[in-house]
């Protein structure tokens, strides 16, 4: 395939709006190729979009669907010759997820939180999502085995468990959600800071985070730890964020990447002592990121309208449900995690919601280096992913932000710094935040760029970067971003002007990390006891069988010597 004459933004390869031809052969970018020609003359061309943090598959997503037929009926599209039927807005069915990502020019999305015990379910759903490539992060932050290794300061056993857990879950990386809080929630409690003792386990969240970060680097995993802070969603929580980040600043990464990725920063950049004096602390957080290089974040942008909050932070969800008097699902996972789901409507006239909206944008605009900030809405917590074009245009257009600001609660300019912010992002910034940076943060070498050998994932938009004024023409830009002119996945045109043309199955990435057998042997003694006494299933039935990943893409990692031998 030849993509002719596009204005290409491929920041990972130092290409910032150059007119050039692109070539794809056997699903990969190459130097030259023949075949189908796509006319992209003068049009915006970027690598396929990469979403590094989205809740797209597994028990809590399906729980969201089951408790929200009111949501499912919103997005109904009948079956076609190519497509299965679509339903849902904040919690779309699997097919709609694939089609809607592809329509926007996205070709990769990672599920952000899966307990090992329920990973089989996650993979059943991932496999059912058409077109896009996927992966799932595995939850470790409230796991008994993890906490015991950390308590015993047995880092090699911890690393062996992380490797074992990733293999059992066919998971991609280490996710930590409100560490210790999920265990405390097992008896209805929570932890109030990173230095609290986790009940019954004699460890602190800080120790869990540092232990897992060290194990992560010991295993040379492609992705860093992926952290949802303690106290997320609470006024005044920015100090928890900064203090926790500071715990990790001297750790050496094992690869050219961050040591910690912060999930949905917006929800952890809050000042004030209550919802009454709630205010943005985005500037303090942005300062920290500007002065340090060990951390990246994704925005977790909130948009007004309907959302479905879902997280492994179960006590947070109970609070949400009580506060909003809304329906509440909870799901605790034995020995591993807890989680919750609560529908939500964000209202622009509600001061708290309006300030939250501003905080996400402030963070992205105040952090100088776009490689440190990924564009997300923490789908569907802040807003469903179909609204990414709205977020992108807000970042690119001050007039659009001003228009929005004028409709919000009048206190917003006092509680945030957004009103005075002049910065307007350009296509290079956007290509980094939606393509190059998420791929680099995840450690996906063949994603997020268009160099030779990269996956043949390309999005082409009906926008002329050399003509369109992204500041003034934000309506036009948003419309063009919603439906790519072409989305090419692995060298196949999957979507054209919003119409799905092909639905190839996507691959699922997982990480197989090698560890010394002696460490695994020591670990198995512990695990066999846990299964004999505490788990409700047998160890033989625990790990996800290969049958669930017919399109697996295994990434090798682990102790360098061992992985070379392997």
């Amino acid at each position, binding site marked *: 395939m030849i993509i002719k004459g596009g204005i290409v933004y491929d920041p990972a390869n130092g290409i910032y709006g150059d007119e050039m031809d692109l070539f794809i052969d056997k699903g990969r970018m190459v130097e030259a190729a023949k075949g189908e020609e796509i006319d992209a003359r003068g049009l915006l061309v970027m690598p396929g979009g990469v979403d590094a943090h989205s809740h797209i598959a597994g028990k809590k997503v399906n729980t969201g669907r089951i*408790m*929200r*037929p*009111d*949501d499912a*009926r919103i997005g109904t599209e009948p079956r076609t010759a190519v497509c299965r039927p679509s339903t849902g807005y904040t919690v779309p069915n699997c097919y709609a997820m694939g089609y809607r990502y592809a329509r926007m020019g996205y070709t990769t999305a990672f599920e952000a939180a899966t307990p090992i015990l329920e990973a089989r379910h996650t993979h059943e759903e991932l496999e059912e999502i058409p077109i896009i490539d996927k992966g799932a992060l595995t939850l470790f932050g409230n796991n008994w085995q993890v906490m015991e290794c950390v308590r015993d300061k047995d880092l090699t056993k911890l690393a062996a468990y992380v490797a074992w857990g990733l293999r059992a879950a066919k998971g991609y990386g280490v996710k930590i959600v409100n560490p210790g809080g999920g265990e405390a929630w097992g008896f209805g409690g929570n932890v109030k800071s990173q230095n609290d003792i986790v009940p019954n386990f004699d460890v602190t969240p800080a120790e869990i985070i540092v232990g897992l970060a060290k194990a992560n680097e010991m295993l040379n995993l492609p992705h860093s730890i992926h952290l949802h802070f303690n106290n997320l969603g609470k006024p005044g929580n920015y100090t928890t964020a900064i203090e926790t980040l500071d715990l990790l600043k001297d750790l050496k990464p094992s690869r050219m990447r961050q040591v910690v990725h912060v999930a949905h920063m917006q929800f952890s950049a809050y000042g004030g002592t209550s919802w009454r004096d709630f205010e943005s602390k985005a500037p303090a957080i942005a300062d920290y990121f500007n002065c340090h290089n060990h951390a990246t974040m994704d925005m977790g942008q909130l948009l007004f309208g309907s959302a479905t909050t879902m997280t492994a932070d179960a006590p947070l969800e109970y609070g949400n449900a009580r506060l909003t008097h809304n329906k509440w699902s909870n799901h605790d996972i034995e020995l591993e995690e807890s989680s919750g789901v609560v529908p939500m409507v964000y209202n622009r006239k509600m001061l708290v919601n309006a300030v939250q909206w501003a905080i996400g944008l402030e963070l992205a605009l105040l952090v100088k280096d776009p490689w440190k900030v990924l564009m997300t809405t923490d789908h569907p917590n802040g807003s469903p992913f179909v609204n990414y074009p709205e977020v992108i245009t807000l970042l690119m257009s001050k007039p659009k932000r001003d228009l929005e600001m004028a409709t919000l609660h009048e206190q917003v300019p006092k509680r945030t710094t957004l009103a005075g912010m002049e910065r307007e992002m350009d296509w290079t910034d956007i290509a980094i935040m939606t393509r190059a940076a998420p791929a680099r943060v995840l450690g996906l070498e063949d994603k997020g760029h268009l160099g030779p050998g990269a996956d043949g994932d390309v999005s082409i938009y009906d926008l002329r970067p050399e003509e369109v004024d992204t500041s003034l023409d934000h309506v036009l830009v948003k419309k063009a971003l919603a439906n790519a002119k072409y989305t090419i996945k692995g060298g196949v045109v999957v979507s054209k002007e919003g119409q799905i043309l092909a639905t190839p199955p996507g691959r699922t990435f997982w990480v197989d990390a090698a560890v010394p057998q002696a460490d695994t042997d020591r670990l198995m003694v512990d695990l066999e006891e846990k299964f004999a006494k505490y788990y409700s299933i047998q160890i033989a039935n625990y790990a996800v069988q290969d049958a669930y990943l017919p399109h697996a893409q295994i990434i090798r990692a682990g102790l360098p010597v061992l992985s070379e031998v392997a």
Partner: protein
Amino acid sequence: MRTITIAPKNAFRISVEAENISTDKFAPLTLSQINSLVVWQGNRQKTLSDLFTVEGDDAPATTEETTIKLIGDYSQVKRIGEGMTAGVVEVQGNVGMHAGNNMKGGLLSIAGNADDWLAREMRGGKVIVMGNAGNYLGGGYRGEKCGMRGGEIEVRGNAGAYLGEHLCGGSIRILGDAGDFPGAANQGGTIFIGGSTYLPGAEMSKGTITVKGEAKVLPSFLKTEIVQVDGLAFQKYTGDNVDNGKGELMVGVGSS
């Protein structure tokens, strides 16, 4: 005033979905255009004229000036008058499920009985049923917080269970008995039941429910005073206190 008369050509074994039979859809169309409107019978997409005879004035009119007369048996025809904003739909016999769904204005009158989900999520206008109504009269859709938000429904006969579930506004008047759980999660609407019912107002937070006949009342309602309305005595309750509700429930005090 433009009047269009429709009659089924046959009895329907498999139910028909006919959301296009509404004043808003008919108003701007000629008769031949109306004839080719889509209706569904199971998985078969058909035109209105495949299943019904259509007669009346050919010239388009405004919605306000449009009247649709339905002659014959419509008990297997669903979604009649869905979303209508004005005009009149007059059903001379029985009508199937979801008549007047999401209705915003105008009049839907039914001479016979109405099936379940009559005027689901209604926002305005008026519905009159001379016979009985089924379950979920003026109710909502599964999982939604609000059912009916406005308008008026009057049923001269009896109504089924769960009437006015999640009622957020408007008024429902049943002259006969009502089934179980009328006005559950009522958030501000008004319900009158001429006959008897069972467990009215469960989890209601606002609004009023008046039951002239007998009613089994939940243990979470607080009995207050006896009040006289139009010469009749009612026991007043407030609730539902499980949710600190501020609703008002009045139950007739044995007129015998």
